[in-house]
C-alpha cells in the first residue's frame, strides 16, 4: 500500500507541469486572437470602459507579466464573460458540465462492456464468419462519423417512429415536474442520479429514454476500438501456456476463456480504455450538436462559430483539465490493479 501511495503522489506531482502546459497553450491562443481584451468586453461597454478593462487585466504589460496575471485570474475564478451565453464563463461551465459528464460516462460504460464482449467472440472464433462480421462491424463502427450516425438515429427514431425527441427531457415533463409547477430538486445536475434522489419515476424514465440514443452514438466508435484491442489481446492470450495448462487440466472451454484467457487479456484493454476516456468528452461535441444536448460541447461549438473567445478558451481549458484528471484517475486505478506498474515507475 505504501508503494501505491507513493505512486499516487508521484503522478499528482507529474500532473502539475501538464496543467501548466495547458494554460501556456491556451494563453498563447488568447494572444493569437488579436486583442485579448475581447474576451472580457461586453457589447454594452464604451471605449473608456474597454481601456479600463485593459488596465485591470494588465494587457499593456510585458507578456510574462500578462501570463502571471492570467494564471492569477484563473485561480481566482475569473475566466471571462461568455457573450454567446450572456453569463460569466465559469457559470456557463457549471450549468453545462453535468449534461456532458452524464452522456460521456454512459457512453463509456456501454462501449467498454460491448467492446469487450465483441472482441472476445471475435478472437475465440478466429477467421470464422462471425470473426469477419465482428471485425467489419468494429471497423465500421469506427469509420462511421458520430454526427452521421446520430442524424440517422434521429431520422429513424424521431422522424419515422416518433419515439423520442432531441434534448435531455421532454417539454411536458419539464413543465409538470420542475418548479414552478413541480417539486423536482436538482442536486448534482446529473438527471438520472437526481431523479433517483428525488424518487421521481417520470423524470427518470424520460431522462433515460433521451439518454439512450446519444450515448449509443457516442459509444459506437469507442466500442469498435475496445473490440479491436480486446480481439488482438485475446488472440495473444489464447496462445499462452497458462491457457494450454487450463485446457490440459480439463477445464471446460467457457471457463478457460473467461477466467484464464480474458482476465489476462484485459490489462491492455484497460490501458487503451483509459487513454481514450478523456477523449470522449471532446468527441461529445458532435453528438451534443446533433441531439441538441445542452452540454459543454454544444456551448463550445456555438462559441467557436460566434467568435465568443472567452467561451472557446474556457471550454478548451475545462475539457483539458477533465482530460488530464481522468488520465490521472485511470493511471492510479491501473496501478492499483497491476502491482508491476507502481514498482516500475514509482
Amino acid at each position: 500500500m505504501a508503494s501505491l501511495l507513493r505512486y499516487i503522489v508521484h503522478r499528482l506531482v507529474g500532473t502539475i507541469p501538464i496543467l501548466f502546459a495547458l494554460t501556456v497553450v491556451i494563453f498563447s491562443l488568447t494572444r493569437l486572437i488579436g486583442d485579448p481584451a475581447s474576451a472580457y468586453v461586453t457589447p454594452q461597454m464604451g471605449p473608456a470602459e474597454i481601456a479600463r478593462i485593459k488596465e485591470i487585466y494588465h494587457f499593456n504589460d510585458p507578456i510574462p507579466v500578462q501570463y502571471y496575471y492570467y494564471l492569477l485570474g484563473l485561480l481566482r475564478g475569473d475566466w471571462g464573460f461568455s457573450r454567446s451565453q450572456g453569463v460569466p464563463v465559469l457559470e456557463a461551465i457549471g450549468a453545462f458540465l453535468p449534461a456532458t459528464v452524464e452522456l460521456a460516462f454512459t457512453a463509456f460504460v456501454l462501449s467498454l462492456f460491448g467492446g469487450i464482449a465483441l472482441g472476445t467472440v471475435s478472437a475465440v472464433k478466429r477467421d470464422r464468419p462471425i470473426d469477419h462480421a465482428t471485425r467489419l462491424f468494429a471497423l465500421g463502427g469506427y469509420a462511421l462519423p458520430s454526427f452521421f450516425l446520430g442524424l440517422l438515429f434521429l431520422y429513424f427514431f424521431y422522424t419515422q417512429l416518433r419515439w423520442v425527441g432531441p434534448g435531455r427531457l421532454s417539454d411536458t415533463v419539464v413543465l409538470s415536474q420542475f418548479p414552478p409547477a413541480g417539486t423536482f430538486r436538482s442536486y448534482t445536475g446529473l438527471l438520472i442520479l437526481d431523479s433517483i434522489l428525488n424518487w421521481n419515476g417520470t423524470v427518470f424514465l424520460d431522462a433515460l429514454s433521451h439518454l439512450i440514443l446519444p450515448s449509443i452514438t457516442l459509444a459506437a466508435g469507442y466500442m469498435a476500438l475496445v473490440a479491436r484491442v480486446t480481439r488482438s489481446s485475446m488472440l495473444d492470450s489464447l496462445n499462452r501456456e497458462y491457457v494450454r495448462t487450463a485446457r490440459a487440466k480439463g477445464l471446460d472451454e467457457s471457463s478457460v476463456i473467461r477466467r484464464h484467457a480474458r482476465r489476462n487479456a484485459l490489462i491492455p484493454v484497460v490501458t487503451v480504455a483509459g487513454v481514450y476516456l478523456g477523449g470522449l468528452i471532446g468527441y461529445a461535441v458532435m453528438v451534443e450538436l446533433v441531439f441538441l444536448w445542452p452540454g459543454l460541447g454544444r456551448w463550445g461549438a456555438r462559441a467557436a462559430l460566434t467568435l465568443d473567445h472567452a467561451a472557446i478558451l474556457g471550454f478548451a481549458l475545462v475539457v483539458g483539465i477533465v482530460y488530464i484528471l481522468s488520465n490521472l484517475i485511470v493511471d492510479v486505478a491501473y496501478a492499483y490493479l497491476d502491482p508491476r506498474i507502481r514498482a516500475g515507475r514509482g
Partner: protein
Amino acid sequence: MHTSILGYVQGGAEGAMTVGSSVHLAREASFRKSLDRRLEEFRYYLHLFRKSPLGLLGLGIVIGFLVIAVIAPLLAPANPVDPYIIPKTFVTDPQPPGGQYVFGTGPFGTDIYYGVVWGTRISLRISITLVGISFILGIVIGGVSGYLGGPVESILMRLTDLFMSLPGLVLAMAVAAVLGRSIENLILALALVWWPSYARIMRGETLRVKNENFVEAARALGVSPRNIVFRHVVPNAIGPLLVVATMDLGTTVLVASALSFIGLGAQPGTAEWGLMISDGRNWILDGRWWTVTFPGLAIFLFVLGWNLLGDSIRDLLDPKLRR
C-alpha cells in the same frame, strides 16, 4: 536492407586493399541480392494479403476513391467559377434523388452528387497533407531523439508527452476557431495535435534499430551520422509508422469532417462532406434523408477503406498474429 549492409561491409574491406571498382562490383552484387530478397518477401506478403478478404475490400475502396478523385471532371463537369464550390440551382427545397440529380439536391438546390465527387479531392488533400506533415515531423523528432539520446531526447520527448496528454480534438477546435474558418487553418490546427504519436512510435523503433548489427557495422566503417540515420535507421524503423499512416489517411478525414460539421473548416458552399452533412441536417427531420446520407456514406467508406487496408497490413507484418 540487412544483407545489403553486410555485403557493403565485406565489399568495403576488400576495396581498401584492391581498387575502387571491386568495391563497386561487390556493392552492386549485394544490392541485386537484397533486391531479389526484397522482391521475394514482397511476393510472399502479396500472397498473404490475397488471402485477407477485408484487406482486399479496403484496397478496392481506396482505389475506387483515387479513381474518382482523378476523373472528377469527367464524372461531374466542373463548376466554371470554382470546381470546389458546389453549383446552386436556387430551388430552395431539397429534391429527392432521381432524374438530373442522381443523389438529389441539398439546401439552395446544391447537387449532392457533385459534392460527393469533388469532395473526394478535398478529402484526399486534407488527409495527405495532414498525414504528410505529421509523418515528416514524427520521423525527424522521433528519429533524432531516439538516435541521439541524452538531453535532446529528454527535451523532445517531454514535449511530445505534453502534447499527448492534452485533449487533441478540443485544442484543434480552439486553434481553428481562433485562426479563422478555412481548410488550411483546419489542417494546421490538426497537425499541431497529430504529430506527437508519430514521434513517439518513431523514437521507439529508432531505439530498437540503432542497436542492430548492421548499424553498428556502418558506424564502425565511419559512415556519417546523417547517412546512418537516413539510409540505415529510418528505412528499417519506418514499418509501423507506415501502418499508422495508412489508417490515419482515413481517420484524419473523419476528424476533419467532424470539425467541418461544427463549422470550423471549409467555407459555406464548398464540396466538403462534413459541411454538406451540416447543411443537410436541418432537413433530415423533415424526412429529406438524402441530404445527409450520401455525404455520410462517402466519409464512412473513405475511412473504412483506409482502415481495412492498414489493419490487414499490420496483421501481415505482425508474425505473432501469423500462424
